[in-house]
C-alpha cells in the first residue's frame, strides 16, 4: 500500500494501533481542507503495529491533547519534503478544555462556559483531577 509523502505538513507517528480515529476527532482534523491520511496497522519493529496520520498542510498540533491520549506519539514536522523537527510528547500537567468533569455537583456542570481545567495528580496511573472539585478522571485511553 502506497501513501504519498507530504511536502509541507505534519506526520503523527507511533500512534497505538487502532487509536488514530480518536486522535482525528480530538484534533478536529475533520475541519481541515487539506489531505489527511489515516494509516492503520502499519508494521512496526518497536510496537508490532501502529497507526500513522499524515496531514498535508502546516498546522499547530495541540501537544497536550496528544500527550493526554498517548505520550508515545511522535510529531514530525515536514518542510519541502524533509523532516525539520521531531517532537516527543509527554503527559501534560494541565489539561484545558480537553475533557469535562462528570461530577454533577461541580460548578462546571451548571456553568459550562467555564474552562474545564484538570491537573495531573498521579502520573503513574495517568489520573487527572478537576481543578474545581477534585473529582478524579482516569485517562480514557
Amino acid at each position, binding site marked *: 500500500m502506497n501513501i504519498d509523502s507530504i511536502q509541507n505538513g505534519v506526520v503523527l507517528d507511533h500512534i497505538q494501533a487502532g487509536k488514530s480515529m480518536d486522535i482525528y476527532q480530538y484534533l478536529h482534523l475533520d475541519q481541515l481542507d487539506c489531505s489527511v491520511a489515516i494509516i492503520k496497522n502499519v508494521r512496526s519493529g518497536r510496537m508490532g503495529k501502529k497507526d500513522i496520520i499524515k496531514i498535508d498542510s502546516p498546522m499547530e498540533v495541540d501537544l497536550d491533547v496528544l500527550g493526554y491520549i498517548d505520550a508515545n506519539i511522535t510529531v514530525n514536522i515536514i518542510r519541502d519534503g524533509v523532516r525539520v523537527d521531531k517532537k516527543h510528547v509527554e503527559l501534560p500537567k494541565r489539561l484545558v478544555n480537553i475533557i469535562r468533569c462528570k461530577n454533577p*455537583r*461541580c*460548578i*462546571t456542570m451548571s*456553568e459550562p462556559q467555564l*474552562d474545564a481545567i484538570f491537573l495531573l495528580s498521579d502520573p503513574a496511573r495517568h489520573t487527572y483531577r478537576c*481543578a*474545581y*472539585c477534585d473529582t*478524579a478522571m482516569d485517562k480514557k485511553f
Partner: protein
Amino acid sequence: MPRNLIDITDLSTQEIDQLIATAEDIIDNPVKYQSVCAHKQLATLFFEPSTRTRLSFESAMLALGGSVLGFSSASSSSTAKGETVGDTIHTVSCYADIIAMRHPKEGAPFAAAQVTEVPIINAGDGGHNHPTQTLTDLLTIHREKGSLGGFTIGFCGDLKFGRTVHSLVSALSRYENIHYVLISPLELKLPRYVKEEAFKKRGIPYTQTTDLESVIPQLDILYMTRVQRERFFNEEDYLRLKDSYILTPEKLVNAKPDLSILHPLPRVNEIAVAVDKDPRAAYWKQVKNGKYIRMALIMKLLGITV
C-alpha cells in the same frame, strides 16, 4: 501568603501556625485589633444559607473595625436571574476589598478566583471544602491540646460527604504523630482519594470502624459530624443513616477525662443536649474560635499587620 483561601492546602503549616498565633493574640488583646480594618469592606456572598459561618465572618470583620455587605441566599441575588458566578464576582469586586463566599456547587470559589484580583475566601463549596472551618478546628485543637500533634483523633458520622472532615484530615496529615480513627457507617466512609492523599502517600496509619463505643476510650479528640440531608440524592438513604451515631453521656463513661469533643455544627441529634454540660464538650468554644481565626485570616489576606 496566598491571595486566596480556596483549599486548606493553599496554606503551609507555617502560615497556619502564624494564623493561630495571631488568633490567640486577638483573644488575649482584642482592643489592639479593633480598628485595623477601618474603611475596609468584606462582602459575604452566601449562595447557600448558613447561620454560623456568615455571622462569624461578619462579626470578625466588624470586630476589626471594617464593614460588611452581601447577601444570604441565592434567591436574593442576581443568581436567581441566571447570572454566572463569574459575573457576580466581577460586580462585587467593584465594591469590596475581600470576599467570603459559600456556594452549593463544588469549585465555585475556584471559578470566582479566576476572574478577580480581590481576595476570595471559600466559606464552603458544596460537599467539597470548608477551609475556614478547618482553621477553626485547628485553633480549637491547639487551644485544647496545646499543639497540633501527639494525639489520637476520632472522626465520627458522615465522613463521605462531610467536607469539614476532608479538609481537617488533609490539614492534620501535615503534622506529626497523630493517630486517626475513622468511625462511620460503611456507606459513609471517608472517600478513597482523601485517604490516598492524606494517609497513604505519607505512610500515615489509620483505623476504620463502624463502632464508636469500642474506640472511644482511645481518643483524645472526638470530631462528631452531622449526616447532612442536603448531600443525599435519595431521601431513603438519608433516613436510614441519619441516626447512626448519637453521642450521649452514657457513651462517654469510658472516654478519657481530658477528651475534647468537637463538632462543626449545626447539630441535629448526633450529640445529645445533655452532653453540652460535660466539660469535655468543646464545640461552643469552637464556634467562638471561628470568629478569631477568621479575624486573623482577613487581616492576613488584606496584608494588614499589627
